[in-house]
Structure formats: C-alpha cells, structure tokens
C-alpha cells in the first residue's frame, strides 16, 4: 500500500481552497441582496478600525441580483451574449483552420515548411502587445475596426494551438498514415479519419484553453473596438460594472463563471489527457 504524504496533501488542500475560495464566495455573494452587498463592500476599506470581515451567509437569500442582471438591466445580458458570440465564432473558426494548418505543417513536406513552423513558434513566444499594433493597423486598413470581425479574425489562426496540435500530430505514428494510404486514403481522409481522432484529447484541451482565452479576453476588444462599446464582451465591461458598486456584480460574475466551469467539466478529461500527452505539465 502506498504511503500518503500528509504534509504535501495538506499543502495541496490549502492551495486548492485558496484557489477555489474566490469562486465560492462569488457564488455566495450573488445571493446577497444588492443593498447588503453595497453596505458590505463599503466597509472593506476600514481595516484600520477592525479586522477584515468575511461574510459568507446573507441576512436573507435574495435573487435580486439575478433579477437585476437578467431582467432589469439587460446590458449585462447583452454583453454576455457578445462574449458567447465571440467565443463560439472564434472556436468555430479555429476548428476549421488550426487542425488543418497543424496537419499540413506536420504531415507534408514543402518549401518553407520549417520557416513557417519557426514563425509559428516565434509568434507563440511573442506577447500579444507586440502583434497588437500591426494587427490594429491592418484592421483599420481593411475598415474592420469597431466591428466584431476585428476581434474574431485575428484570433482564428492562433499560433499556440497550431503549435500544440502540430506537435501532437508529429507524434502520431507514420504507420497509421501509410496503412491508410495503402487502403487508398487520400490526405483529406487521413486528416479526418486518422489525424483528428488521434488528436481528440489535445483538441479537447485546445478547445477548453481557447474557450478560456476567448471568454476572458480584454485587450483585443478594447483596442480593436474602441468606439463601439455595445460590441464589447462581458469580460471588458466587468471592470466598468465593478468600478462603482451597483450591488449586482456578483451575480454577473457568477453567470460569467458558469460557462467556463461547465466547459471545463466537459473537457476535463481531454484537458488532463492533452496536457499529459503534450508534456505541458
């Protein structure tokens, strides 16, 4: 029987609790009434007078925050749908482009392949701020600024996921493809019947990570859609919502967290498998 390392286990538990605590508190506070939340938040900056209060139970469970977010002030809902539109569009676009690009870079030999692969790696390394300016200029020249396309199009061919998938497809044994070719399978059939199924785990992980990227993006909308606030996703607007407490931030945050949580649960196995396969851990 394997002996348990209790100190490490304790440390892991503490770390897990510290990580999960904000999420739990967000959900708890979303059931406070807006007035109670406002009073509670107003007392946050007076730590010199008393110890920091941690309030976990509302005086009375209230759905007022959800009512306000979902019914009364539909701005949050609209931004929420903007987030959904951006995320689904980018994920759909990436689903079309990224696996195909990774497949071509991993399975075909053509002139400049290595240079392209190198550029992909370089783009992965480069921070967003470096590519932001040329992207913004190009979008302006294409007159796409202040449209949803300004956020969607640059994110379609994400180099990180191309690199991730390419690395995974390289590791697929050649025998599998050769066997398929013997059975008269062309490159497209090999792609759909060998490369994709063999990369399912890493695809799931990539989809989950890409979802998180899209769901949480802030800089891109702010830079590419500066003049049309109504097209911003909820992740951008959140800062404005919580800037001046309206008492509904926690319901908004809870709703914002929920899809990410569900997507993670959906891709949980794939993410873990993908990380294990791609040695990202």
């Amino acid at each position, binding site marked *: 029987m394997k002996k348990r390392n209790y100190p490490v286990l304790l440390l892991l538990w503490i770390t897990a609790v510290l990580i999960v605590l904000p999420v739990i508190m967000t959900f708890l506070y979303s059931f406070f009434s807006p007035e109670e939340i406002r009073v509670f938040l107003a007392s946050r900056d007076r730590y010199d007078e008393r110890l920091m209060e941690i309030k976990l139970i509302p005086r009375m469970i209230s759905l007022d925050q959800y009512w306000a977010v979902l*019914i*009364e002030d539909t701005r949050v809902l609209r931004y929420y749908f903007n987030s*959904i539109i951006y995320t689904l569009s980018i994920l759909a676009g990436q689903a079309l482009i990224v696996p195909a690009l990774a497949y071509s870079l991993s399975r075909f030999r053509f002139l400049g392949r290595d240079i392209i692969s190198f550029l992909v790696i370089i783009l992965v390394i480069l921070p967003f701020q470096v590519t932001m300016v040329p992207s913004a200029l190009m979008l302006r020249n294409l007159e796409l600024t202040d449209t949803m396309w300004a956020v969607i199009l640059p994110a379609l061919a994400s180099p990180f996921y191309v690199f991730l998938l390419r690395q995974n497809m390289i590791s697929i044994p050649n025998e599998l493809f050769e066997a398929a070719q013997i059975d008269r399978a062309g490159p497209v059939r090999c792609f759909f019947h060998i490369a994709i199924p063999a990369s399912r785990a890493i695809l799931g992980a990539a989809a989950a990570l890409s979802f998180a990227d899209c769901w949480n993006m802030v800089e891109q909308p702010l830079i590419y859609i500066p003049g049309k606030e109504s097209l911003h996703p909820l992740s951008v607007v959140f800062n404005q919502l919580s800037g001046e407490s309206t008492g509904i931030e926690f319901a908004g945050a809870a709703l914002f967290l929920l899809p990410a949580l*569900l*997507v993670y649960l959906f891709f949980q*196995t794939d993410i873990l498998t993908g990380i294990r396969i791609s040695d990202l851990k």
Partner: protein
Amino acid sequence: MKRKALRGIVILLIALLICFFFSGTIKTMTTAKVKIAYSDEGLIKEQIPLNAYLVFPETEEIVADYVPDGIAFTITKLNVHRGSFVHTGDILFETEISGIKEMTTAQEKEYADMERELLELKRQYSGILFSNSDQRWIETYDTYLTALLKKHQAEVALEVVARLKHVILSDGRIPENITDETVHEAQNAVDAAATEEETAKKAMDRAFRAGVSDDVYNYTLRTRMCLEKMEQAHVLLVNLLTASESMKTVRAPHAGYIVDINIAAGEQWTGLTAAMTISSENPDCLFRADISDVSRTLSINLKSVIRTFSGAGINSSISAVGYDSLGNPVIDIPVLQEDLKRINTVNRLMRDGTTVEVNYISDTETRLLPSAAIRWGESGAYVYVAEETTDIFGASVYKISKMPITVLDEADGVTALSIDLYIGPVAYMEDRYIAEGMEVMEYD
C-alpha cells in the same frame, strides 16, 4: 460528467435566451412611462372670460319740463321697460299732479275771496278822496319799501362775500385792515343802499307828517294786499294747469334705448329727479366688464369675443381701459347696434350681461412648458428633466434629474419660464411615481 456538463451548458443557454427574450417586455412593464415635453419660445396666451354688461356711454335724463313749487306727480301708467327701444314721440309714461283738484279749488277760492274783499273795501271807502299829500305819501312809501329791499339784498351780498373771503364782520361792517377789493365793493354797495334807504325813510316821514288820513292808509294797504293775493292765486292756478297738461303724457325726446327707469306705476315723482334715462339717438353700444379680479394687464386693441345666447361669438376688441363711477377698473368692448339682437335682449344684457372672452397675449417672449410638467416642492418649482440615452437595443430610455425653475407666469395650461433658461426634454404625466435618478420610458 461530460453529459452533465453539456446538459448544464444547454440549460444555461436556454435560460439566458428566455431571459433575453422576455427582459425587454418585463422592463417595459416595470418602467414608468412618461410624456416628454419640449420647451418652446413664445408669447403666453390666455383666454380670460369676463361677464360684461351692456352700457350706453351717452344718455339723457327724462325730467319734468316745469314743476311748480310744492307739487308732486303720481305715475299713472308706465309704457316702457328697461332696454325698450323707443321712437321719437312715443309715450314713455303718464302722470297726474297729486291732489290737483284740491289745489286748484283752493286757489280759485282764494282768488274769489280776495275779489269779494276788494269789492267790500271799495264799498266801505267809497267816499274817500286822495289829496296831494296822500299821493306823495304813497309814492314815498313805495320808494322806501324798494330801498329796504335793496339794502337787504346788499347786506346779504356782503355777508356772502365776507364768508367766502374769510372775513369776520363786526356790527355788519368789515374791519378796517381788510384790503380785498371785492369785499370793499360789497361794503360800499351796503353803505349806498343804507344811505338810499335813509333818504327814502326821511322822505316818507316828511310826507307822513304832511298828513295822511287813516282811511287812506288802511284802504291803500289792504287793497294792495288783496291784489297781491289774487295775483298769486292766478299765477299758481295757471302753473298748476300748465304743469298738469304738459306732464300728462311724457314722450320720448328722440329715438333710443331706455337705459334706466327710476319710477313705477303708482309711485310719487317730484319731477326734479330723472324718471328714466334714455340713450342717445343711434347710440354707441359697449360691453363693460369689471376687471378687478383679473391679474393680467389688459390693454387697448386686445382681441375679444362676445358670446351670444346660442354660444356663437362676435369678434371685437378692447376700445378703452379705465375706471367706472365706483372706481373699479373696467374695460369697454364695442359692439354694433345691429348685433345686439343676436346676443340677447337689451334688457337682459344690461341686467345680467353676457360672457366676453378676452384673448390676452403677453408682451415679451418666454420659455413655455405645459403646466402639467411643473412640480412644486418645499423649495419651490422644479421639473424633471429627462436625459435621453439609447440602450443597447436601440430603445430610448430617459434618466430623470431634478431641475429647479422659476415660474414667471401661467395661463391656459401653459407655464412661462425665463427665456434664458435652457431646459431639455421634460418628463411629465407619469403613470406611476417617479423620482430623481429613475429611468423612465416615453409613452408609445
């Protein structure tokens, strides 16, 4: 786990879609609806209804042509009423002198008595002879009586002048320090009359000392008294009969409306006061309205509408602004004589009046808002300014903010504010309670 997560995503999406679909409807139901008013620059107008009475500016009083002293008329018949239109010569009313039979009988009896006494005196003093001294005495006696009367008249005149000049007489004479010429002239007249009276008295006394018999004295004085009384009775009789005949029927001196009647059948009338008042021929007709309760400053030429009994209107305008005999501020609105019948009967127009609507227009331009949009609080008047914003669905949403204002005027549901004050869209006629900071929507 995957299935549960997928189910969760689907449920979340459906829930969000339902909320998204119904949120607009629920928000419309839960948001206060208001009307939005925009201020406008212009003149404030008000229709001021007034009760105006028909008046005739030029009138003539009906009084008796000749009234002997001590008599009164009895009104036997009254042929007109207030507001009647009469033509020249129409009989207005009929009178008779109260107790005229008794009065004429008494005067005739007095005359006959004096006649009899005169005959008796002539019989009694049939043998009397008038000597030269008797004739002289009679003449000086008449002169003395005339001088006495003249002196009395001069004394009365002096006292009147002295009283007017605030001079106090001493023993019937003015003090020496008085310099006023008028007073001195009056005093000189008194002195002259006194001298004349003294001279006449001396002459009469001299004539009397020359010898006047008692018969001559008595006959002369008594005869004179009888003749005087006969003359008085005669004159009075003539006057009575003249007045009786002349006032038997009182006729209209000219065509016109009977404006006022101060007599009634069976009543006594002295003849000296106006029995009735008649308008001038082809009179100017005016509607006069008391504007004591009107806060506006009404001026000449303001358009007005005179309401007829049927509700129709006759256009006119204010011709004069002033005060009536009681000191009340009034306005005059002229109307054509031929239009009077359309409005109502003249009598009713003079008695009850009719409605006149004056269209007041302010002199200066102001900022106008519906009065319903003005709210009053402890600190005065204010409006709810609606700042328009467009929500994410493109619908207009207004946010309410309070704006204090100063009301300059109010008329016919319109309030005037200072023209320098800029006011955005104003929310009013809300369907439920609204307060500052609330979001409202405009009625469809």
